């Protein structure tokens, strides 16, 4: 799948999810490297611990599900009329972190090829 299309889907679904909370501000940041990418989403609405856990669980499924990721994952980012479904993208990414910041919630998605190792990602050095 082309990167552009893949990133579009992820951005569409997560931003749809954040917009459901009707934030006054939302920031999306993308950083790409050759074998991976890092997406950060920020809004101005803090979430309860229970909500954060639910988001984390949806974005970090216990098992890889190639049969769902490849086929049903295509729905991600397309349907913005009804509830966002973070699980659709949880199957397609390497890892996600979710936390409250001083102003709102921060969702980080790490995606890339099988050889991609998020711990070696250089975003911290560059930013």
């Amino acid at each position, binding site marked *: 799948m082309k990167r552009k299309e893949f990133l579009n889907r992820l951005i569409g679904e997560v931003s749809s999810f954040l917009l459901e909370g009707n934030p006054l501000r939302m920031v999306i940041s993308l950083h790409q490297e050759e074998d991976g990418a890092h997406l950060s989403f920020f809004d101005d609405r803090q979430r309860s611990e229970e909500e954060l856990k639910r988001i984390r669980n949806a974005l970090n*499924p*216990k*098992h890889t*599900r*190639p*049969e*769902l*990721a*490849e*086929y*049903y994952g*295509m*729905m991600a980012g*397309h*349907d913005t*009329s*009804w509830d966002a479904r973070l*699980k*659709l993208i949880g199957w397609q990414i390497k890892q996600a972190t979710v936390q409250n910041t001083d102003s709102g919630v921060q969702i980080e998605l790490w995606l890339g090829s099988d050889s991609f190792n998020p711990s070696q990602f250089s975003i911290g050095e560059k930013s």
Partner: protein
Amino acid sequence: MIPMIEQHERMRYLSISLFLVFLLTAGIMADGPVKTFGDLMTIQATGSRLLQDFTAIGTGGAMVNAALVALIGLAVVYFSSVTLAGPTMAAIFTMLGFGFFGKTVLNCLPIMAGVWFSARFARKSLGSYSLIAMFGTALGPLVTYLMFELNYPLSLAIPLGIIGGFVAGALLPALAGAMLQLHQGYNLYNVGFTCGFLGLFASSALRMAGKMDPITITWNTHPHPTLLLILPVASALLVITGILDRNGNMRTLPSDTLQLQKLSGRLPTDFFDAVESGAPWVNMGLLALASMLFIMISGAPCNGPVLGGVFTVVGFGAFGKTLRNCWPVVLGVCIGAWVFGKPITEPGVLLAALFVTTLAPIAGQFGIVTGVIAGFIHLIMVESTAAWHGGLDLYNNGFAGGLTATLVISILHWIRTNRTKEDFTS
């Protein structure tokens, strides 16, 4: 120590395998090994477009064919290293059900090979397309039709059937994703919708060549008593597996089963992921019991297509269907039958009442009234759609359901986006 998830998955393999062994044994015992084998061979070479009830050829042969078709599905799941959970179980049970009326060992394989080729072409694993490969066998009748119904010499017809199935299978992954966008996951049999779409082109080509015969119906009105055993055994096995799968934690099983009823069921909702293990099995068992009750009340025969319908409902009891979201759409079909003066025991209406549960997520998400309306529209559509694709798509209700869901969802989407209060202009 075996990890918990692996243990649950082993339980699923064990339970399904046990049921397939039961089907094989009961099938062979019903007709004897010689007749069963002979009928199994006849089924492979018989036209299988809608509606061909294999139990009219032979009970044992049909049961063994169904078990073998399901076994192919189980092997695909195992060897493509995907999880045996909600979606894959739905696919296996659907294959099992349609093994009674349309899918054969012979007509499934070329389609699966085509999907596999497509996966290789797209540099994906077969696991990525495993659901499409399994559900895609709905186009099995295309293979059989090209092989045995065109009256070509076998030396030409067999390669033609293989190539036809292979090409259809290879096209499915490209189409299935696109069709999914139309109804946004509110039609559970999306590959059926896709196969119907592809079937339109295949049947049109055959019509253009003057090679498309009209649809015929074979409907066994006096099924063998052995067939009556299948659903009670399946229901009992499902509920018992659900109980055993709890590892002794029975206290919360009723509440977990109730919690499952609250899910909309929209694709893709894997019930084994959504609630504690055990509850999806019980849900499947309850759906089997409810379906049996419906068949008994309507006075329908427990033949191949009816068993196929019930097993499809049961399979999707792990992947989208609950008692709560199914009944409104079934009621919609019953109201439609009453309005149009069609007896519920008429094959098309009866099967629509079972397979309309493909639209269960609409009732689950938008409520009872919308579900009833969707069921009503579905009956109107499904009465016509089989003729459009010449019966080549076994999931005719998936095709009609896809059209119905697209209509309903498009209207609801329009209302939602144009009647909202929170707009910058208001």
